[in-house]
């Protein structure tokens, strides 16, 4: 029997207690998650059983995920165009057979995003000073502007698009307004966070030399926040290009309407062509805006 020092015994005891506690927590969290999983699975048909036709013609019950997977593979396989090396040009032309329409709609998509970003940027910029705790004229203004931004941000642009298509008729105008409204909410929040981090001393300087609230914002805050505003706006433009490419699905202009027609006419390869178009566009915009952002950051460093 070796003598164990009491400090070691105490350590062992505490260690065992700690282990017990963390095991209990782990079990509890796991139990909560399993319960939540079962509840949500029942709501979202996760364990639904559907009928499939077997190769010998008989019907069988299968779990819906397993039943759908071959269909999914088949579907994705159909979207891949037939490209062969010796007739590549003709195959590509065949794949992008509606390229004139698509190019035009792509331009429309980008213009919708541009308009919406400009309008959203202006609106968000104006509201962001009212919604920043340190710059706001008063608590009521703060509260109202913050709730406005929150609601504009919470409602997805597709819902706005549904409403505006009814009001302004189908077409890109409804899309511009829908994306712009959502953008006001998203950008206004980001801008107001930038505003809350400004250095207040320039504003005090403007105030001390007799500037109004407006002068303080214009000459004290705006020069500080400009680089951040520009980079957030560029990021948002890219997000808006993506949303504008979707929004046509409910009739608000842009490429989205082509997705709908391709789906309803079962033009499988059109889907992959449209996807390639959007992917290339977003990649190019991503690359360009990153260059611009780095340029602006570089300017800030040298200034």
């Amino acid at each position, binding site marked *: 029997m070796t003598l164990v020092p009491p400090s070691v015994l105490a350590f062992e005891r505490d260690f065992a207690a700690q282990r017990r506690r963390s095991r209990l927590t782990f079990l509890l969290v796991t139990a909560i998650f399993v319960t939540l999983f079962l509840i*949500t699975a029942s709501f979202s048909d996760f364990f639904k059983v559907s009928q499939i036709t077997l190769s010998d013609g008989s019907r069988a019950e299968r779990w819906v995920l397993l039943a759908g997977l071959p269909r999914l593979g088949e579907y994705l396989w159909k979207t891949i165009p037939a490209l062969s090396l010796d007739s590549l040009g003709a195959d590509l032309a065949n794949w992008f057979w509606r390229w004139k329409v698509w190019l035009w709609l792509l331009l429309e998509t980008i213009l919708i995003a541009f308009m919406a970003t400009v309008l959203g940027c202006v609106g968000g910029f104006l509201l962001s000073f009212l919604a920043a705790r340190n710059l706001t004229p008063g608590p009521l203004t703060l509260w109202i502007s913050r709730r406005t931004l929150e609601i504009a941000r*919470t*409602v997805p642009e597709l819902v706005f698009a549904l409403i505006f298509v009814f009001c302004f*008729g189908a077409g890109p*105008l409804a899309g511009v307004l829908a994306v712009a409204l959502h953008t006001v909410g998203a950008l206004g929040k980001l801008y107001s966070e930038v505003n809350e981090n400004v250095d207040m001393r320039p504003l005090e300087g403007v105030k001390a030399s007799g500037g109004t609230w407006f002068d303080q914002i214009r000459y004290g805050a705006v020069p500080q926040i400009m680089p951040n505003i520009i980079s957030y706006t560029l990021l948002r433009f890219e997000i808006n290009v993506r949303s504008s490419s979707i929004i046509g*699905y409910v009739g608000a202009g842009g490429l989205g309407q082509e997705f709908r027609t391709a*789906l309803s006419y079962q033009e499988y390869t059109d889907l992959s062509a449209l996807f390639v178009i959007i992917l290339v566009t*977003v990649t190019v915009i991503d690359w360009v805006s990153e260059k611009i952002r780095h340029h602006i950051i570089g300017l800030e460093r040298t200034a």
Partner: protein
Amino acid sequence: MSASPPRPSRSGPSSALAVSPTEIAEARARLPEAFRAPLLRRLVRLGGWLAFAGLFAWCLYDFDASPERLWNGLLRLGKVLSFMFPPHIWTSWKEISEILTGLAQTLSMAFLGSLLGALIAFPLSFLGARNINRIPFLRFGVRRGFDIIRAFETLILALIFIRAFGLGPLAGVLAIAVGEIGVLAKLYAEAIENTSKKPVEGVVASGGSPLQSIRFGILPQVLPVLLSITLYNFESNVRSGTILGIVGAGGIGFLLSDRIGAYRWDEAWSIIFLIIAMVYVIDALSDYIRTRFIGHYDGTR
């Protein structure tokens, strides 16, 4: 600007005017840039603004945004908005249960999608992290894979899954899950790259295997961050879950687009109110969980 109070100037007795014209001229000579940009830069700026204004005006023309059309649209919008008051309240249990099921489906889609996405993204993210996966081209390939998944909009994924699995929430769950794999794997990989090497070295020095070094060196550092990221994404998935129903992937969005399509605006507004309320509650809950169990972590995207 009101006149500033007089201050003693450097030239003898204080004058009423704080800055004398000679001083202004001196300053102008010393710092010409502070008063006026050079001609070329001004021209470039003017050209930029003109191009911008021209593009904007052309868009207005191309999109047929005539004042008349805008005005008529706003009038219709006002009419539509007037249905907000008094708010429509469902009376029969059948209608109430339909709406509640829609909300529950949206929440379920967001939860299950985030959970499945997180479970699959977790092992994948180690392959995309520089400090775990030391084979450059493999890591690069995995990262590009995440980018490609992220290029698919959730809505487009939902359309694809509806074709394979039929209408209903399951397509929405899978759309959210697949989209989430791309987003979470990227964010997880970045979080793993930001860990400290010291605990890992400690585990290796006391004879731990590579797997143990990840389990006891990296996981304790990174787990709170991963949970926080996942919670944020769950919140944003609740938001995007509302629109998946519009294309037929179950949830409250289906009911909303159905009501708007039938011009039942009073019910549509009530559903929008409920969506906003649900998002609020979920945000508050996840905020509570974050502050209570996870600790502070600022921002993901």
